[in-house]
């Protein structure tokens, strides 16, 4: 029981199911397979950006340029496609762009020692600016049909990109559980000085985190470009903050070292679902942001109180001398 209470992922999933239930009772249409799939489909961009942001937050960093990186990657994708590049080449170019943009953040933060918030605020401006410089400020439209096609593919009624995102989610989960580098993310975020003293490659780990954030932002760019079929200059604008919110909601601690890819993904799914639910409940769209904000605060607050209660229980138990009887469960 305690384990479940302790896990933010569980709390958010429970809330999500409850909200779906409530929405469904008011509007049975919501329970239809298609609308559920639609929510998943709509959440993919945010899920991917949030997964990348998660690596950064795990190391106790912050990256507010991921939305801009997604936008810039989308511009590169659209521009190369319109230049007649084959889809695979354009996608590789976009992903490379995002990765390089992330690596540039990483360079500034780990080598030049610019504080993460300042470095990424700066590059947020630079990358958004580059989008306009490349395109001259106009949207990229008339993309070839073949980039929109993958969005139409499906398997068992579930769109291709949902499968891809699920696969990426599973891969990151596996990596965070088992890979050496992932262990470093957690260690560096939990106690940077400690990690350094233990001889871990602290800077290398931070470098990898920001670079990965760029890569994931670029993957998100590929997905939304395929989904909407054009690239606006506001593409993925504001997603950096949404991605941070999704991580916080999903239990990735801003103080580093705590969180899972599943949490980040559920947080992102939740924030997107709230939007759809409000539509189904007939609440005007202008309520969206306020509602999402309130839920974020409520979840974080409840979670904080639960943790505090558990902690004080644990301390009292310790004072009474019942220090964690092995195998004991409650």
């Amino acid at each position: 029981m305690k384990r479940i209470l302790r896990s933010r992922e569980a709390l958010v999933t429970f809330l999500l199911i409850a909200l779906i239930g409530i929405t469904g009772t008011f509007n049975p249409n919501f329970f239809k397979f298609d609308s559920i799939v639609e929510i998943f489909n709509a959440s993919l961009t945010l899920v991917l950006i949030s997964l990348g942001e998660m690596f950064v937050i795990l190391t106790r960093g912050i990256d507010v340029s991921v939305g801009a990186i997604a936008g810039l990657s989308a511009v590169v994708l659209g521009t190369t496609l319109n230049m007649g590049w084959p889809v695979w080449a354009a996608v590789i170019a976009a992903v490379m762009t995002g990765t390089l943009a992330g690596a540039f953040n990483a360079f500034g933060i780990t080598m030049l020692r610019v504080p993460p918030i300042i470095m990424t605020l700066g590059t947020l401006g630079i990358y958004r600016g580059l989008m306009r410089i490349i395109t001259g400020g106009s949207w990229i439209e008339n993309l070839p049909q073949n980039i929109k096609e993958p969005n139409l593919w499906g398997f068992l009624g579930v769109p291709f990109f949902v499968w891809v995102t699920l696969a990426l989610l599973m891969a990151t989960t596996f990596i965070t559980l088992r890979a050496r580098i992932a262990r470093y993310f957690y260690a560096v975020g939990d106690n940077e000085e400690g990690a350094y003293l233990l001889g871990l490659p602290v800077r290398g780990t931070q470098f990898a985190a920001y670079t990965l954030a760029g890569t994931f932002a670029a993957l998100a760019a590929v997905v939304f470009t395929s989904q909407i079929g054009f690239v606006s200059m506001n593409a993925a604008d504001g997603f950096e903050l949404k991605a941070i919110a999704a991580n916080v909601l999903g239990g990735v601690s801003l103080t580093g070292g705590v969180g899972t890819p599943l949490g980040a993904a559920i947080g992102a799914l939740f924030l997107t679902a709230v939007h759809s639910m409000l539509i189904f409940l007939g609440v005007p769209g202008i309520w969206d942001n306020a509602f999402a904000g309130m839920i974020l605060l409520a979840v974080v607050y409840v979670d904080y109180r639960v943790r505090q209660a558990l902690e004080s229980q644990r301390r009292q138990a310790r004072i009474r001398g019942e220090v964690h009887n092995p195998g004991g469960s409650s």
Partner: protein
Amino acid sequence: MTSTLAGQAATEPLLELRGVWKVFAGVPVLRGIDFDLQRGEIHALLGGNGSGKSTTMKIISGAYSIDEGTLRLEGKVVRLDSPRSAHEQGIYMVPQEPHIFPHLSVIENLGIGLRMNPEELRSRVEPLLSDLGFDVDLDEQGAFLSIAQQQLLEITRGLLHNASVLIFDEPTSALTFREAKQLFERMRRLTAQGIGIIFISHRMGEVMEISDRISVLRDGTVVLNDLTENLSPHDLVKAMLPPDASDVKSRELSKTEIAGDRGVGDRKPVLEIANLSSEAFSNASFKLYPGEVLGLAGLVGSGRTELCEAVVGLDMHSRGSVFIGGSELRRRSPAVCRRHGLVYVPEDRHAHGIFLDLPSIYTITAGILDRLGEIFIDSTKEKDIGEGFVESLNIKLNSIWQLAGTLSGGNQQKVVLAGALATNPRVVLLDEPTRGIDASARQDVYRLIRSLTASGVGVLLISSELEEVVDLSDRVLVMHKGRIVAEFSGDELDLDRVTEASFGLAEGVAS
């Protein structure tokens, strides 16, 4: 505030503690302290680490409340429940690290928290400054003041609060010799005005020089209280030591055996430090041999921790050479030291050694992940290693996946030690390995140190508990004010000598 001189002790003391007890988590820290301060007197308070000195000061300055006993000011019983109420009663503590707002000017720093308009403040401050001989531009920014000036600023703050009791906590630790002399002159000027000063210092020479009276604390009681003129430094050291100190010499058999069959001279040192210097210490040189426990004794602030940090390369500005197993390490970092078989277990385990929000196993294997697989971690192997340490170090936890932050202090320390030992080091630097852990965990740590040396590892042990250093070490180096002032081994190694040397009274020993 008329000038009453120290001689008229018949009047009510300025400040008086009677039978004061303080208990933390069931452990009594103060056991009936009696202490008094007369007008115009400098009363020095001495005591080893953990004697209850700082707790007493925190009670007088209002930071802690009294569990039992009374505090009187000029004969009246008062209850202080915050530093603020102490200020209102005329008690001001000049902290070891002055509290300066670096972005505020001197006058703003002085006026903060006082309800006074700027003109009034200036008119009050100026005579105080000239009395003190504190020559400073009131509009200078706090950040540009020297330590000595910051201290004067604190004293001025106290005087602005009309303090009649000033507490100086280790005021000279960051001062140069000349600045310290000037401070003493100013202290004398203050006492001439009838102010009473409580002076806390580790430096025996200063205490003898400046104080009128000395009290020595040990284990939460005042064991000595006499006029300075009646005392010698040796009386003070003796008072600070436990009464059975001479028994400590009866060392354990195992150790004498080891020391006996190991002629230290005929082995190659596993760690050698040559002329290492930094801001906090200078010209440290020593050799550590395999299978030896080398104790590094000294008071807090004597430079022990800084020495270790310089050895492992945390201090970028240190000079000098470090050799491990005969080869010099030029560019040192914790990672490089680990590769050469030297691990450092830092003093503050929360800040430097453990991942509190992560499973305990993460801390244990963090330094050896490269041995557990190239890309992915071999979790079976990791589990075996972790459980091996849990077993051998007697770590009490539900499973190796229990978050390290939920373990008790002693078990956290063992997890940190396991992380250090997992790398199979040749040299281990242990900084305060038993601080804040319970008695049984302490025994486990002692056992661990012995088993390390039995397997040929060299251990450098830092501890503020001099008994512990003396008991565990084959050889002890004593640091005082950033210098290694003495070395003791064999029959010469006893608590008396180590304590004297720690307080700067090493006579006729190597420096």
